[in-house]
């Protein structure tokens, strides 16, 4: 496909990108402190000062007003979109629109989450009168391990995915994590290790579930023209997409595929004017080992039912044709609860040439984010060069 890019407008780029000094176990940091540290690191990375920021975006808790105030800034534009771990990809998309509309010139997007230590963290609560509270919570759900996981047995039966192939997703990603000094888990593992790990929610073993960590990060988004004059190599936002699916896993239309992954991906690829053949590097939000399989299939890298074998054949690990989740992913690097920010950060690092497991000069990185339990999706097509 060589269709012309649509949505023509001013070029927009990521000019600053940084994580908190450390990720992992940070009991000395509150949720808000993680936002602030990530923000200061990203603004410094761009070679800017907080005075240059005129737009801010972050999830609803603690929210853009609180984060802006803590930083001592009064933005002219804000976005509090909070649709789970993919929110930060949507913030990038919305920032592109705001910058093109002239509502802001330089947008700061922040993430901070004390997911492990729960310091100053918003409580987990399900309203018993909400649809989720009435029609799912009474059946003993307890967070993502009991809900995000439910579709997979249907997929396994319909498409023949084996337990060994599922386990291999964690094996492949650990090979990337082994190259990343910041990754929480770095020891090489085998399929046997994964299948011998504790059963969390059949068919998912512990090593097929993401970490729970503390950390944060932030991005500075501005015009490509302005970014070109700043401290770091710009990472161009070539295309974006967002889509919603279901607030309850039981109401996911088809348990064997993610329609929202497909829809958001199509929008992002069309805007960027790329096909899967153009993609050098891929990040797929991996809260659980099945999500990269759903992501590969929805984005069209492989056909339906081929995602598991594709990973098990080594195509996504170091040396493979499609490097996937090269920081080690949520399974091995870090997962604060809303992991999307870290997936974007790795895409930026790879395109700048500064990743721990650096690829050979990738031109295009695609980042697919999931929010909730197959609830919301954002996709970014990032490029080393403008369109």
């Amino acid at each position, binding site marked *: 496909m060589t269709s012309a890019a649509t949505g023509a407008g001013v070029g927009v780029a990521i000019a600053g990108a940084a994580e908190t000094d450390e990720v992992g176990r940070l009991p000395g940091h509150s949720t808000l402190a993680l936002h602030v540290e990530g923000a200061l690191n990203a603004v410094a990375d761009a070679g800017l000062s907080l005075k240059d920021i005129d737009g801010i975006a972050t999830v609803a808790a603690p929210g853009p007003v609180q984060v802006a105030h803590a930083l001592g800034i009064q933005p002219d534009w804000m976005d509090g979109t909070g649709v789970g771990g993919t929110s930060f990809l949507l913030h990038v998309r919305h920032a592109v629109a705001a910058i093109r509309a002239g509502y802001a010139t330089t947008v700061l997007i922040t993430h901070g989450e004390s997911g492990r230590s729960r310091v100053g963290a918003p409580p987990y609560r*399900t309203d*018993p*009168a909400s*649809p989720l*509270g*009435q*029609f*799912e*919570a*009474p*059946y*003993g*759900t*307890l967070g993502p*391990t*009991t*809900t995000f*996981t*439910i*579709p*997979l*047995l*249907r997929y396994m*039966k319909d498409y023949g995915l084996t337990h060994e192939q599922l386990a291999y997703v964690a094996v492949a990603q650990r090979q990337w994590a082994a190259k990343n000094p910041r990754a929480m888990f770095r020891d090489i593992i085998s399929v046997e290790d994964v299948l011998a790990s*504790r*059963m*969390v*929610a*059949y*068919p*998912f073993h512990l090593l097929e579930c993401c970490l729970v960590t503390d950390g944060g990060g932030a991005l500075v988004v501005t015009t490509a023209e302005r970014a070109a004059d700043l401290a770091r190599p710009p990472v161009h936002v070539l295309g974006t997409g967002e889509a919603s699916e279901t607030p*309850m*896993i*039981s*109401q996911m239309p088809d*348990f064997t595929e993610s329609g929202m992954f497909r829809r958001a991906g199509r929008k992002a690829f069309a805007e960027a004017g790329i096909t899967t053949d153009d993609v050098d590097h891929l990040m797929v939000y991996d809260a659980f080992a099945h999500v990269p399989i759903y992501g590969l299939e929805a984005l069209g890298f492989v056909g339906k039912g081929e995602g598991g074998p594709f990973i098990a054949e080594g195509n996504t690990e170091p040396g493979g044709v499609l490097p996937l989740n090269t920081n080690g992913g949520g399974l091995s690097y870090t997962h604060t609860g809303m992991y999307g920010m870290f997936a974007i950060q790795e895409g930026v690092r790879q395109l700048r040439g500064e990743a721990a497991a650096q690829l050979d000069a990738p031109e295009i990185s695609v980042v697919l984010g999931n929010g909730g339990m197959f609830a919301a999706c954002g996709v970014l097509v990032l490029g080393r060069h403008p369109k």
Partner: protein
Amino acid sequence: MATRSKAVPVPTPETRPYWDGCAAGELRIQRCTDCGEAYFYPRPLCPSCGSRAVEWFTASGRATLYSYVINHRPAPGFEEEAPYAIAVVQLAEGPRMMTNLVGVPATPEDLVLDMPLRVAFEQRGEITLPVFTPAEEGRS
């Protein structure tokens, strides 16, 4: 540590007929009188066509097992039952819903996808909650 109890749903005006149905031992859901589509969860419009011409009816209570997990980390109140299945079933009328499976061991060998099920009811505080149990083929 005090034992916490299982989550109890709080009905809203648009879901009250569903919970009243459960209390009467019936699985009452909605369908569209314009396009004919049956749907779940309760809401005042047809999610297929947008029509507000919808009605309540009593579903057959027959279903098949669509997918599930066997949860080893119990939610509050489920400690005695772990590991237990959290399932999604497909009703004979089409919609899917989350449920628990009763009268069958929570093992992969006993829980075979597409196995026939029928609705049963459990008391949970003031609420009667629909659950599902294996059904003989051809019976309900």
